[in-house]
């Protein structure tokens, strides 16, 4: 218990620091006193426009998207009992991105519908990847899951690139969906998504006990009065929804959903409730951390947060793939 509280306190402290840095640091240097002033009032200063108009919105977007990705990763890893499951590796982000390109750019759906479009695309991609991985005798091994997720992701990526190549104008309109970046986010886009996020996080919380049972094996779970298939479906559905929110807010961001649950488990063990809570805090810490680094490494320009999360996350994937034995 003390360990869990300690980890929770640590996560809160880390996230707080990251949020403060995310508001204080950018590609333009604004003295901290001016940052505070800008947050307080002074409606006309340049510092105010930078801090309140740019850094606060991207910080808010990063908080929401990061939480969604962290929790979605926990749900997917729990539902598939597979340590390598995550929104990006299952093709959910690629599916969401592709669907947004088709729906918003080609079919002319309003930008506000992006999250639902991304949800449908992400669910279809996840179903495809899981279906592909489940074929054959060995069943859902981590390596098969990674392979089929990679296949689905690259297939969708190729389709997206193909569509964009057809129509340059459309390509320009949707490119920022596909960038995996928190830059230039409209804070107004977050509001309508909040009910979805809250519902998703609550649902995840309520599922935690059932996921714990699932972790003991399907037979034990049935013996405990659970319905493994139903739990899996609901968990995957919530995970896809949360991933879709993240895609709608920040575009495809890789590795946050993979890395954060592992970090959380390393800190507090395998029980799902504390892992969920911690992932909800560490997800945004990682995403915003990557965003802040991206703002300062390439001054006067920026590196997209998605590029940096991939840079940080790829070694972790390699480590997991090496360590985790296939059950076959």
């Amino acid at each position, binding site marked *: 218990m003390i360990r869990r509280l300690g980890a929770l306190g640590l996560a809160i402290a880390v996230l707080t620091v990251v949020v403060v840095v995310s508001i204080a640091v950018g590609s333009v240097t604004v003295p901290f006193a001016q940052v505070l002033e800008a947050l307080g009032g002074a409606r006309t200063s340049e510092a105010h426009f930078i801090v309140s108009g740019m850094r606060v919105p991207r910080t808010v977007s990063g908080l929401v998207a990061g939480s969604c990705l962290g929790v979605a990763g926990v749900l997917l890893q729990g539902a598939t009992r597979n340590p390598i499951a995550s929104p990006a590796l299952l093709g959910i982000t690629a599916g969401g991105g592709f669907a947004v390109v088709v729906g918003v750019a080609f079919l002319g759906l309003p930008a506000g519908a992006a999250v639902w479009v991304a949800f449908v695309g992400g669910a279809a991609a996840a179903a495809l990847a899981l279906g592909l991985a489940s074929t054959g005798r060995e069943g859902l091994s981590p390596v098969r899951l990674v392979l089929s997720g990679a296949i689905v992701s690259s297939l969708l990526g190729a389709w997206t690139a193909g569509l964009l190549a057809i129509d340059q104008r459309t390509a320009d309109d949707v490119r920022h969906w596909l960038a995996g970046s928190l830059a*230039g986010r409209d804070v107004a886009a977050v509001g309508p998504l909040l009910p979805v996020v809250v519902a998703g996080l609550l649902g995840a919380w309520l599922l935690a006990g059932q996921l714990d049972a699932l972790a003991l094996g399907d037979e034990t779970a049935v013996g405990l009065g659970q319905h493994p298939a139903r739990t899996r479906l609901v968990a995957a559905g919530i995970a896809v929804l949360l991933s879709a929110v993240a895609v709608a807010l920040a575009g495809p961001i890789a590795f946050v959903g993979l890395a954060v649950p592992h970090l959380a488990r390393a800190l507090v063990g395998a029980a799902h409730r504390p892992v969920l809570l911690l992932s909800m805090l560490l997800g945004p810490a990682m995403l915003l951390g990557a965003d802040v680094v991206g703002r300062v490494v390439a001054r006067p320009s920026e590196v997209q947060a998605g590029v940096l999360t991939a840079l940080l996350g790829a070694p972790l994937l390699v480590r997991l793939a090496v360590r985790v034995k296939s059950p076959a």
Partner: protein
Amino acid sequence: MGTSQVACAPERVVTLGQGQTDSTLALGVTPVGVVEPWTDDWYAYLPDEVEQATVVGTELEPDLEAIAALEPDVILGSKLRHEGFYEQLSQIAPTVFSETIGVAWKENVSLWAQALCREEKGEQVVAAYEQRAGELAAALEDTGVADTEVSMIRFQPDQVRIYLTGFPGLVLRDAGLQRPAAQQVEDWATSAMLTEISEERIPEMDGDVIFVMVSSDSYAQAEGYDLDETMTRWTSTELWKGLSAVQADAVHKVNEEHWNLGGGVLAANAMLDDLEAYFMDTATS
């Protein structure tokens, strides 16, 4: 690069870059082969003859088979873009490369003129440009607008650029115009031609006048920027609205075709046309 022997005067010319196509046309030669423009359609400022040429791939990936099929007398390209193709190209025809493109466009015109055995014509077109630029500079001086600090920017889907030197920077300088402090460079020869910026750096775009290089579709649109998602987003920020050029209503769309994409002597003259129209009209109104 390249000391190839060129038959004088070559009739069948293949150009591998936008600037080579532009300047070859200016020298009175219509290439038999050209690479695609960066846009869907040919640049409006180029003479119609360009459409008679066969398209042989893109500036980054010229189609060697298509070039060979044209049986050219000479091939014009640049070391910057085409160094890796030199061996194969020179087996097809004598190949002449400029070192680079953009800022070196005037020297390059002389190089192309030499390659096409039209040295005199080459000197003529550059001199005509210099004279026009000098006259414009004098006129700007007379009307008291020569101290205008001109900013040049371009919004692209994945990056936003401030132009410092390069082709457009040189033409502005020839016309005697000034640049805002944030866009001045120490050493013209070694400076990066442009800088990519993040949203927080919008204030560095400011100047007495801001020229925004836009696509010809966007240029044809009388008002607003709604054809370009990035531009719409950036220009709706408070930082943009606070720029002195924005407040003074001195933001002016210009066609990227001759401000940025063309890079030859015809494009340079077209830029002078725009500058003259903008500043002399502003000055008299």
